[in-house]
């Protein structure tokens, strides 16, 4: 069967990278005695695929992975087996069975939403002005790892949220397609905010209809 697991990644796990997360899930499923399918060949690989790599240091409320199992197991059963076999900073929020013939999980992601909290106080109206200015612009040429690209079309939503106590934080929805991925730290950079003074949390991944 092909099972789709939605999970959180918080706390210490923010510092576990994409490849290590793969290995972590493989071990968790072995502990839970779930019969993972493996690829054929000299170095069999577990058939686990994670929807979209989460940058190191970010927390998440909605990571998604697909795993292929050699047996059909009720999703409640999978959940209960996994329950005590995950490190404390990962929690499963949803498990569903999906059609085996669906395209690869990674190709179905279109965008991702983020919340960015600021650890140093900022001037809310100044931030709002910068956000408006950025959203008004036609294009935002940027350079990343020696490649030039336009950040502007990758930003679908960017807004400042003001709490009752005057505290402000940012909400973003960025494109997360295969060759067109908006990175929250690039947006922060464009706003003149040091990523060092923020806490970023991915709140959801949005899939193709």
């Amino acid at each position, binding site marked *: 069967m092909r099972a789709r697991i939605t999970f959180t990644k918080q*706390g*210490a*796990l*923010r*510092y*576990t*990278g994409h*490849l*290590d997360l793969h*290995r*972590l899930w*493989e*071990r*968790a*499923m*072995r*502990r839970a*005695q779930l019969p993972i399918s*493996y690829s054929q060949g000299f170095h*069999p690989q577990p058939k686990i695929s994670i929807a979209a790599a989460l940058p*190191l*240091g970010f927390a998440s409320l909605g990571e998604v992975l697909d795993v292929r199992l050699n047996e059909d197991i009720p999703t409640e059963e999978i959940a209960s087996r996994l329950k005590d*076999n*995950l*490190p*404390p*900073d990962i929690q499963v929020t949803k498990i569903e069975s999906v059609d085996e013939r669906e395209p690869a999980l990674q190709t179905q992601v279109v965008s991702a939403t983020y919340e960015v909290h600021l*650890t140093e106080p900022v001037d809310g109206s100044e931030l709002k002005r910068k956000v408006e200015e950025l959203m008004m612009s036609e294009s935002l040429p940027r350079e990343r790892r020696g490649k030039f690209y336009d950040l502007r079309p990758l930003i679908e939503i960017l807004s400042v949220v003001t709490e009752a106590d005057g505290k402000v934080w940012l909400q973003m929805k960025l494109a997360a397609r295969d060759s067109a991925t908006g990175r929250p730290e690039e947006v922060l950079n464009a706003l003149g905010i040091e*990523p*060092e*003074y923020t*806490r970023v949390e991915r709140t959801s991944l949005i899939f193709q209809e």
Partner: protein
Amino acid sequence: MLTPEQIEAKLDRILLKVQKPGRYVGGELNSTIKDWDKAQTKVAFVFPDIYDIGVSNVGLKILYDQVNQRDDSLAERAYAPWTDMEALMREHEIPLYTLESKRPLACFDLIGFTLPYETLYTNTLNILDLSGIPVRSNERDETHPIIIAGGHAATNPEPMHAFIDAFAIGEGEEVIHDIIDTIQKFKSAPNFKRRDLLVALAQISGVYVPQFYETTYLEDGTVAYTEPTIPEAPKLVHKRIVAKLPPPPIKFIVPNIEVVHNRVSVEIMRGCTRGCRFCQAGMITRPVRERSVQEVVDAADEAIRSTGFEELALMSLSSSDYTYVSDLVDAISKRFEGRKLTVSLPSLRIESVSVDLMDKLKQHRSGGFTLAPEAASERMRRIINKFIPDEEIINTTRDIYSRGWTTIKLYFMIGHPSETIEDVQAIVDLCKRIIEEGRKVAGWKVKLNVGASTFVPKPQTPFQWVACDTRDNILEKQALLKRQLLKEKNIKLSWTKPEEALLEAWLSRGDRKLAEVIYSAWKNGAKFDAWEGDQKHEKWMAAFEEHGLEHTFYTYRQRRTDEVFPWEHITAALRKNFLFQDFRQSLEGQIRVDCRLNCFACGILPTFANLRRENPGEGWKCPDVKSPAPKIINIELPVVGD
């Protein structure tokens, strides 16, 4: 002192600037987080090298579990931060903290360092400093934790005497409880005095408190004697052992990042009966005690289930000597059949039976087959008491190649006592012959990885009297190996820098005077001495010079037969005369057989006669103690009024 919340907030600022930040955040499955306020005694265990190496250490895991099983105590862990992290921690004034609760080490009652090898000494000083704890014992007061250390390097604790409050000599499973009980008794008393506690610790069997001892030297700089300065401290500190191996750890920490060993390790046997004269571990971990096949297999199964690891290591100093090794391999193969699991069985004897064993474990042939002849000439192998005829080596390696392994790893040492250039030439000749014979059965693809490390004569071994081979000799011997082996297409050669062996020699063979050298070397910037690189040697040489000490005194000097060693007041229960007789026999090229066949009276039985008497039979591989237990006379007093 910073709170856990303050430390976490500071960490979030810096962690993305360091390599592998996952080393510094904890949160692993199977780590134990207990209620801080409910624990009377808090213990921090430290492996003084990076997380990647330390997290899988079994010794520390045993102690971690021992302490966490107590209702009144908790144990947490810390490792040495890599240099990038250390620099940021110092810049942001973050003290070293434990991974479980993120509390500074200085908040704990007890800090326990494991010192499995000597090149961790400078890191130990650095960690104390990074924790804001005075590096020297005599500068600590009632507000500071008690600093203890144990592990094989504690066989000669003297070079570290100025920095460690108490050493646990020998096995730690029981003594850790005695130490915690004593700390609780003293710390809960009104008017707690650190010195009173240390005096009490010095009276625990197996505990050495160096500040209550003083060394007097002869004019030539060698030790005259080391004696206690208080009547409560014993003249001779005997190592502790456990009569029966306690159940092995099951719930290994599962790191959230890749580390060096992602595996379950189950100790099948402790101690070794082979008597290889160069091997400190084989000498100081006696007597041999084995676990049952059932216990090993059940523990391995449970540990694999609780970790999800892909690799199982069956640990001992000499797997082939485990009485039921064949049954064990059968039982393991059966239990784990069809599961994706790599099983390693290290330290196999060079004989065809070993190839059969590995065959049964269905090892990935790609991993290579490891053998450790240690020396290449039969003469040399007699001297070190690891005698194997050349033909046996050739037959075994041929067998390995013919059964499908393409790579064999061979471990040798150079610089053995009385070794000549011919003995080193023999390494080249043997390797070439192994390849040649291998080609006859398996063709041109056969490969040989040759490791040639440098021998360091260690305390409490029959070779404690001998000098280290000189740097020039070692360089010449290495040059010979490189000249003849590096051009061979199918042979890979690796070696250690002679400076590394010298450092190991100073630190393991040194006396109390070395403490100042260690301190200065650390001040000069020496740390991570087990790692290659960055001009460490110069820092150490400068430290020797600063204190007017001749480093060759500790390395190139043959010790007098009547010399009093710096470690003379610490014993692994081996009689000096037993070691000396064995040394004499080595000079005559005489071998000693496995002591399961013939007891050579090493000293274990007289020291632990009572333990052996209470635990007769199979459990130990020593003869039973038949003599009656000393009588305890009870005098019955008449009861008044009866």
